[in-house]
């Protein structure tokens, strides 16, 4: 069965640079979610989208923005990167009718040096 695809899987950036993470949901899933997991921490919800509209927002820094496109894929844009942004970024997807059943992608490991 198809799973959530995230690209790139690993990314190394320097401070103050910009990064773009991409997420391709499971086919027919219309809702995507972004989570951030710092070293030794639990995943924290950042933001979610349904039908290209932001549906919920968590502790996402103002330096980050995200959007969902008409094919339901999503991109997380991160600017003015800081050392503290180094983390594993998960994307998850689901049907809007079943937010209880989120499927997680493999994550993008971002390292800021």
């Amino acid at each position: 069965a198809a799973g959530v695809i995230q690209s790139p899987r690993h990314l190394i950036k320097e401070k103050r640079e910009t990064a773009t993470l991409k997420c391709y949901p499971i086919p027919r899933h219309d809702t995507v979610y972004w989570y951030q997991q710092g070293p030794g921490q639990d995943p924290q919800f950042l933001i979610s989208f349904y039908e290209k509209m932001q549906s919920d927002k968590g502790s996402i820094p103002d330096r980050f923005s995200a959007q969902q496109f008409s094919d339901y894929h999503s991109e997380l844009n991160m600017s003015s990167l800081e050392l503290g942004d180094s983390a594993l970024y998960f994307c998850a997807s689901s049907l809007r009718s079943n937010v209880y059943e989120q499927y997680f992608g493999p994550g993008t490991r971002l390292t800021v040096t």
Partner: protein
Amino acid sequence: AQTVTQSQPEMSVQEAETVTLSCTYDTSESDYYLFWYKQPPSRQMILVIRQEAYKQQNATENRFSVNFQKAAKSFSLKISDSQLGDAAMYFCAYNSGTYKYIFGTGTRLKVLA
């Protein structure tokens, strides 16, 4: 605000033995879902088991079962016949039908040969 607490940062179990991981949560909602996720060294988030709050029967998936005590807001995971491949971080998570999962801080499970 909903919270999820895992009070055991680390647990150890002998291979083939049984171990129980604890999770408590706080919510004023009456309808919600609880989850246990496994995160092996690959960092992939793998759903282990899911419990719907309105179901009194405890969920079971092969060697994994839960003890769901709604009144006590407790949701423990029992792993029977532990295997080396069970070694991982285990996260308890909560969702009340909103877009975000709320995770506990995790329990690292070590399986001793």
